[in-house]
């Protein structure tokens, strides 16, 4: 559905995007993860046909965005990280205006507006002026605006920014509902727990480069270090010293009777650690692999030097 190949974008001498490549399949929620200034918004603006790439190509629903940005814009629902609302318009009028701008046939506009307000749970606010809606309601209204022309791709830039927990949950549910409607959704954010709960695949962008992209499991697989959590009986401090002395262990942290162990290799390395503990008569109560959280993966990804073209992982 989305295929970005070696995207480059320069602003004067500043390189905002450098050889950024990734793919997003139809019907997935793709989380574009990166710190501020990483190039997330630039990537989304290029995909939305609002910014011409300095190099590379991007295809959205089979359309070359660089060659035919108008056609790309018609297939994309763009929701920037600001509301962009007009004063003195009701929610229904606001959506009608954008439906008209997208040339939705006039006879269909009332039904489209009603359906969208229903979808974003604002049906009872149809006659409310847009500028008095709460932040969460405005966000949902803007999401409805990006859907007025029934796009196949949704590009959402920091949609959860500034929302309270309830509004975030509502937004998350809404995005899942849209995914079930076969929409392809790209969400950029630096609020990682939020993305972890809603996205099915991720792209880690740092310094304008796509470091890795794909499902989280595919990304965390090739990571050099894995983690394991072992609960021990007896003297945990002795066990900690023992484990820390092993060549397979990179770092260990003791929390009560629980040892959080970072290994110098994949999860299979755990067996060597357990064997050493058994040989030393350290009672082991439980062993559990620690799956890397999105935050940990992100920190690990962005703390290492990025290669010339970054790392691209296929799903």
């Amino acid at each position, binding site marked *: 559905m989305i295929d970005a190949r070696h995207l480059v974008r320069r602003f004067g001498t500043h390189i905002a995007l450098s050889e950024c490549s990734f793919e997003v399949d139809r019907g997935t929620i793709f989380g574009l993860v990166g710190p501020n200034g990483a190039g997330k918004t630039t990537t989304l603006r290029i995909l*939305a*046909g*609002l*910014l*011409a790439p300095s190099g590379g190509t991007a295809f959205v629903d089979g*359309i*070359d965005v*660089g*060659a*035919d*940005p*108008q*056609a790309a*814009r*018609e*297939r*994309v629902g*763009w929701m*920037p990280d*600001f*509301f*962009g*609302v*007009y*004063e*003195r*318009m009701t929610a229904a*009028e606001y959506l009608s*205006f*954008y439906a*008209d*701008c*997208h*040339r939705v046939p006039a006879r269909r506009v009332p039904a489209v507006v009603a359906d969208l307000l229903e979808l974003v749970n604002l049906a009872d606010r149809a006659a409310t002026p847009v500028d008095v809606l709460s932040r969460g309601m405005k966000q949902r209204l803007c999401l409805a*605006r990006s859907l007025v*022309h029934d796009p196949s791709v949704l590009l959402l830039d920091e949609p959860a920014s500034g929302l309270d927990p309830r509004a975030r949950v509502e937004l998350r549910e809404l995005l899942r509902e849209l995914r079930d409607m076969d929409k392809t959704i790209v969400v950029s954010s630096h609020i990682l727990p939020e993305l972890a709960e809603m996205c099915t695949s991720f792209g880690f962008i740092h310094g304008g480069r796509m470091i890795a992209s794909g499902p989280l499991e595919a990304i965390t697989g090739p990571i050099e270090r894995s983690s394991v959590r072992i609960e021990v009986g007896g003297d945990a401090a002795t066990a900690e010293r023992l484990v820390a002395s092993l060549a397979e262990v990179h770092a260990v942290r003791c929390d009560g009777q629980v040892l959080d162990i970072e290994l110098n290799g994949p999860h299979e390395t755990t067996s060597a650690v357990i064997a050493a503990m058994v040989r030393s008569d350290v009672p082991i109560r439980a062993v559990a692999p620690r799956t890397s959280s999105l935050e940990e993966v992100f920190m690990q990804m962005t703390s290492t030097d990025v290669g010339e073209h970054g790392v691209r992982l296929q799903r």
Partner: protein
Amino acid sequence: MSRPKNLFWNPIVRREALTRMRSARTMLLLLGFLAILGAVAYAAYGSQVNANTNVFQVSRAGITVFVALAGTVLALITVVVPGLTGGAIAGERERQTLDLLLCTRVHPWRIVVGKLTGSLLFILFLLVAALPVLSVVSLLGGVQLSDILIVIAAGSMTALALGALGILASCVNRRAAGATLSAYVATFLFFAVPPLIGAIGQASHPNGVVTGGASFGYMTSGGGGRALIAGGPAPFPIPGASRILGPSGPPVVDMLSPVVSISGTLSTLQSQANCATFSGFGGPPICTAADQVTDGAFNGWHYWQVGLLFQGILALVCIALSVLVLRGRVPRTRRGERVAG
């Protein structure tokens, strides 16, 4: 969508009309506009009736009131239009809705034309609202339908030119406040520079004869001021100006200013008032105004006609430049690469 319907399709106009009429500022503007017009009509009529005891002179009150009202309307348009259009597109940018609009199927030219039309429709609304005040003139008599049409044409074209200038200022400025300020500065320059160049050209001409256009006199004393400087000495000779502007002064450049179109129109009407003593009784004007270009490409044209032409050209240039600026904000589909949607 059928072709004519497609041409006039513009959601921006409808939104502008809808939201503008809900603003309290609009109502205040309307109130102020009508109050000023009413006060001017009252003052003009009062001064004419009190100053003249002759029945024929009193009969000219209709024309005097009309000239005063027309001048006020045109002056108010000049003040209001840059304020309306100056922030039109910069305001969209400031609200961050411009990119959202550019993401839709509304072409940049429709955004420019829609914003301009929205503002001009409001001016039309003000004029329609002022009709009851203006209709007082019909009670007094002495004003021809053609006079009213000339004033409407001058006012419309001035509004169009200033509106287009404001839209251009709005396109090149990032902030609405800066854009509005730029629009007013541009309006001032638009008014002041051409007559100033005219004055310089005239100063450089030894005989100081006004050969083309209302020139500086229009700006200083309205249409009637032309006679004050015609044939008079050069006010401030500037060496070398004649080489730039030509030996006989600039016959055209000062007509760029709306001052010419506005004061030229009023001058024409005032001349009729001075000449057509009996026109107050509904008769045709006995003599016509002599405010006509006497040489050059526009020989025989009324100054206000030339002014309108130049204002129209200016408006088109400003609209074209505004569209180009907006088009540059987003990538466009290259010719021949449009994919059928």
